[in-house]
């Protein structure tokens, strides 16, 4: 079998080739290749919000790519994370022979703000190639949870974008019918977010000390 990103006719649909075509075909479009380090090496393309719909339409109607089928839309939650790194800094330190420059190791903590992401898997029915993977990222996980909807381009994205809206809380601007699809209307949470905590139920739980986090285990840890 040939490489999955090259179809029998020989159109290169690798992320890099798509990016080059996008930058050429859609003026002002900012597309970045997101590398996938795993053996599958399915690299994806990160699009900017302003040109996402235009770029998607371009890829769908492009004579060679013809990405006419959006098979999958999924959401990803990237919570805020703190990265600690050790940096060597030169500092003036008071020694027995007076002040002296010295290399000192310092730990620095940087907060990488989280965001929500949607991933679109595109195929071409006509040209029989794919997948081409597009990504869209929100500004943050709070108020800036808006993304452009690609439902006007691929109708098959409608329910899956609704699902991402329901479970991740990503608001798709331009979606024709953005309602919750799995949970009920009055539900306020987004259960697939990493920081979601299911509701406590006031029910005595069997505590035989075997379950992780049970009173016995905590007692043992304390000793």
């Amino acid at each position, binding site marked *: 079998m040939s490489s999955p990103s090259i179809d029998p006719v020989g159109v290169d649909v690798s992320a890099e080739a798509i990016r080059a075509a996008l930058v050429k075909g859609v003026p002002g479009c900012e597309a970045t290749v997101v590398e996938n380090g795993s053996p599958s090496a399915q690299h994806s393309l990160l699009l900017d919000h302003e040109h996402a719909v235009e770029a998607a339409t371009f890829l769908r109607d492009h004579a060679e790519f013809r990405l006419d089928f959006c098979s999958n839309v999924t959401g990803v939650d990237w919570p805020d994370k703190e990265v600690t790194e050790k940096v060597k800094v030169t500092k003036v330190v008071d020694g027995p022979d007076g002040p002296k420059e010295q290399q000192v190791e310092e730990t620095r903590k940087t907060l990488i703000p989280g965001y929500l992401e949607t991933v679109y898997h595109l195929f071409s029915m006509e040209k029989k190639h794919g997948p081409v993977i597009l990504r869209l990222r929100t500004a943050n996980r709070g108020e800036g949870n808006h993304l452009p909807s690609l439902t006007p381009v691929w109708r098959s994205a409608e329910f899956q974008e609704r699902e991402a809206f329901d479970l991740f809380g990503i608001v798709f601007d331009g979606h024709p019918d953005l309602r919750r699809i799995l949970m009920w209307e009055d539900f306020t949470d987004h259960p697939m977010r990493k920081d979601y905590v299911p509701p406590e139920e006031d*029910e005595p739980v069997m505590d035989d000390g075997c379950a992780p986090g049970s009173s016995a285990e905590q007692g043992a840890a304390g000793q």
Partner: protein
Amino acid sequence: MGSEVMEQELKDLKVELSKHGIFTTTLEEVYNWGRKNSVWPLTFGLACCAIEMIATSMARYDIARFGAEVFRPSPRQADLMIVAGTVTKKMAPQVVRLYNQMPEPKYVIAMGACAISGGPFRDGYNVLKGIDRYIPVDVHIPGCPPRPEALLHAFITLQKKIDAQQLRGAGRARHLKAETPSEYPVPDFGSHDLEPTHNDEVFPPRPESPFKVLP
């Protein structure tokens, strides 16, 4: 004590008479015998357990042998609700409503791990942790999914239960007591969970665990 002795004497007499070709019975026996052999279930499946329930109703396992082959599509004509499958929180109010619409006497079999406890989805956000939180369940069947034999066993257990139900006295069946409800409150969709999360009347707080933690 006296009545028990009398009951035993009556039973012995019945057996003795039957040996001589004389058949005697009571209204209660005939009534329960009729009821237990024509329990009509509600056509109603929620997940993979429903496939096993369908298999039970087909020729190989043939629930018709026990008089329960008439699956009714309307709760108004059904005697038995087989809760076959995962009850999601979104579905739970509808299940309770269907139960409320069934006429008395009515029975419930909770079939499979999900229906009795939430099963593998218990720690999830969208699955009810057992239908016995909202409606009274007569027979619970574990299994994922239970085999048709297990459903038949549950059904026979239910038949025995129906057969033993009394029509009079303090120990009479639930549906013959005026004070016990035949309808239960339908839970509402809350902002985080169903409200209430369970019905205290059918799902009372459990006693403390018999398992003691050794110091």
